[in-house]
């Protein structure tokens, strides 16, 4: 359906069309404030336009002119949706650039590395930040956060609450700095969140065997239905229990791919159900060596068939004295690597340039 058919004034219609909004679906994922800024109209007007547009779309749908199969979408719609999908920042600008703005929501991302590469901290960090986003939603345009709670599934027992607290505190400091920057005069009531609240918003599950792990993944569907505000699921690590007690490798492959499918389904389901609700799944993996072409190479554990299970794959490694992240697999971004560093505040930009000057 065309924008021309909307019952709005001719000037507004002209502005819409000249800005490129020719179809109703193109208006689907625009926020009123963005539209107002773009068209130089008042917020109220923009709001009115969007209301009419969504009403028009509803009519469209009832006419049945849209999709052939219920639930199918055109690629154009999906592209638009994707542009407005928020991403979760990693707090490290280089990493964010590598990932095209942050960790993708409604996709399954796998991160792997040798022990001590701080996959755990990374993890924590994502979580801390995740909650940072929860607050940032109130600060317009701050990080473009989505706000929500986190599910953390710990299979290795490396989750340290004191570390989570540290990162949470750093996040809160960052946020208050940010809000001071944003509003020239600091508004004290803006940041009322305490580290306590951040920790309360993390649902922590410790699983001690692979049966528990599978049961928990099955249960997640129900859990997230009950807790609609869960926006990120972190499994740290998916590997550990699957590297013991499996003599039947075919069984292991089946179980793993079943689990991966369930996670993907979760990510998709809860992203679609409520428009603004996106679910992120982050998996952590261990590395192992692989014998190929006469030499040993480093690769992520669980074998080749598992590598099909994830949408994105990031490998963390050391290069000299710096930590690097390498994007191995992604549907839309090219492979590249970026440095990062782990500080007591969480993950930040690499400080190699500073270090070098210090060493001299």
């Amino acid at each position: 359906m065309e924008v021309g058919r909307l019952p709005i004034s001719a000037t507004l219609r002209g502005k819409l069309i000249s800005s490129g909004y020719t179809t109703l679906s193109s208006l689907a994922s625009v926020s009123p404030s963005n539209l107002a800024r773009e068209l130089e109209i008042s917020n109220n007007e923009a709001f009115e336009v969007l209301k009419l547009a969504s009403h028009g779309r509803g009519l469209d749908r009832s006419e049945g002119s849209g999709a052939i199969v219920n639930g199918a979408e055109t690629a154009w719609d999906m592209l638009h949706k994707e542009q407005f999908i928020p991403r979760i920042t990693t707090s490290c600008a280089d990493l964010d650039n590598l990932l095209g703005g942050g960790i993708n929501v409604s996709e399954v991302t796998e991160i792997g590395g040798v022990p001590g590469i701080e996959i755990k901290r990374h993890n924590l960090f994502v979580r801390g930040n995740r909650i940072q986003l929860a607050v940032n939603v109130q600060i317009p345009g701050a990080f473009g956060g989505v706000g929500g709670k986190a599910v953390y599934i710990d299979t290795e027992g490396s989750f340290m609450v004191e570390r989570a607290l540290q990162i949470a505190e750093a996040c809160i400091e960052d946020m208050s700095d940010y809000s001071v920057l944003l509003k020239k005069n600091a508004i004290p009531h803006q940041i009322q969140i305490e580290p306590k609240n951040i920790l309360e918003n993390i649902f922590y599950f410790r699983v001690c065997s692979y049966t528990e792990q599978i049961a928990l993944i099955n249960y997640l569907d129900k859990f997230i239905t009950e807790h609609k505000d869960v926006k990120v699921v972190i499994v740290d690590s998916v590997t550990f229990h699957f590297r013991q007690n499996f003599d039947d490798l075919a069984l292991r492959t089946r179980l793993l791919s079943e689990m991966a499918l369930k996670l993907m389904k979760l990510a998709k389901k809860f992203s679609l159900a409520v428009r603004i609700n996106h679910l992120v799944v982050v998996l952590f993996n261990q590395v192992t060596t692989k014998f190929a072409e006469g030499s040993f190479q480093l690769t992520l554990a669980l074998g080749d068939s598992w590598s099909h299970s994830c949408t994105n794959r990031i490998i963390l490694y050391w290069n000299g004295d710096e930590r690097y992240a390498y994007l191995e697999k992604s549907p839309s971004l090219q492979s590249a690597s970026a440095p990062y560093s782990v500080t007591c505040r969480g993950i930040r930009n690499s400080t190699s340039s500073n270090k070098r000057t210090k060493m001299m």
Partner: protein
Amino acid sequence: MTPENLLHLLQTTQKCTFGCPTIDRSVGGGIACSSLTEIVAESGCGKTQLCLQLSLCAQLPLSNGGLNASSLYIHTEFPFPFRRLQQLSQAFSSSYPQFSNPSDHIFVEPVHSAHQLFDIMPKIESSLENRNSHLPIRLIVIDSIAALFRSDFDNTPSDLKRRSSLFFKISGKLKLLAKKYSLAVVLTNQVVDLMGSSDGLNALRIGNLKFLCSSERRVCPALGLAWANCVNSRLFLSRNEEVVGEGEGMVNGSELVQRRKTRRWLHVVFAPHLPKSSCEYVINREGVVGVES
């Protein structure tokens, strides 16, 4: 299944002190409960000393950084150093007179093979369950895990696969116990020399240190990458000979006497809650003591 309350967890994450404030400071208060900590070092660095001291300190009350608990010492290298333990416990009871016989709270269990270790797990669990005793067990030391795995297995692919699946089984079980009874678990590991070229897999860096160096040689922890995935934190002890006090001989007019001294360091290789840090220590009659730098 219900999620755990992190605020509640925060209050219960305990640490078991090493009995020395300097060492404690560099490892964030001691060995963390509910997780596996590995101490890696070549022989003669003080792994066993540190473990003995730790098992004595576990019985300290919570206010002194201990766990108010007994400890289980599983030794795989023979003989068990009873005499040294006696020495340490004398020093311990002289600084803490309320413990008249501190060795009473250390249970010693010999283990000869990896399979035996796996087989006695149920026995360990039943002794952990026995909570009505005066001091329940909250610390398990396995000294050393490497000795078990380095003897029984051949260097063939099938044996190595069997070996690593056994690692994962044992560490999975230990983690389960650690979580269930909030135990501190300490494992010691040996090192192997790094041979050949320093690229490819040899250059694989695990943790904070670019490479591990002890006695002027490059070393890496035994049991490989698979095992490194099984532990939560890894500490590395190193020792290096250094020349100190060079000028002394000159005074007598005789030839230059070089006094050599062994300096020992403890490094945090990786840990989920700790930054890169290290501290120097010395071993004396009273035990392992950190040196303020």
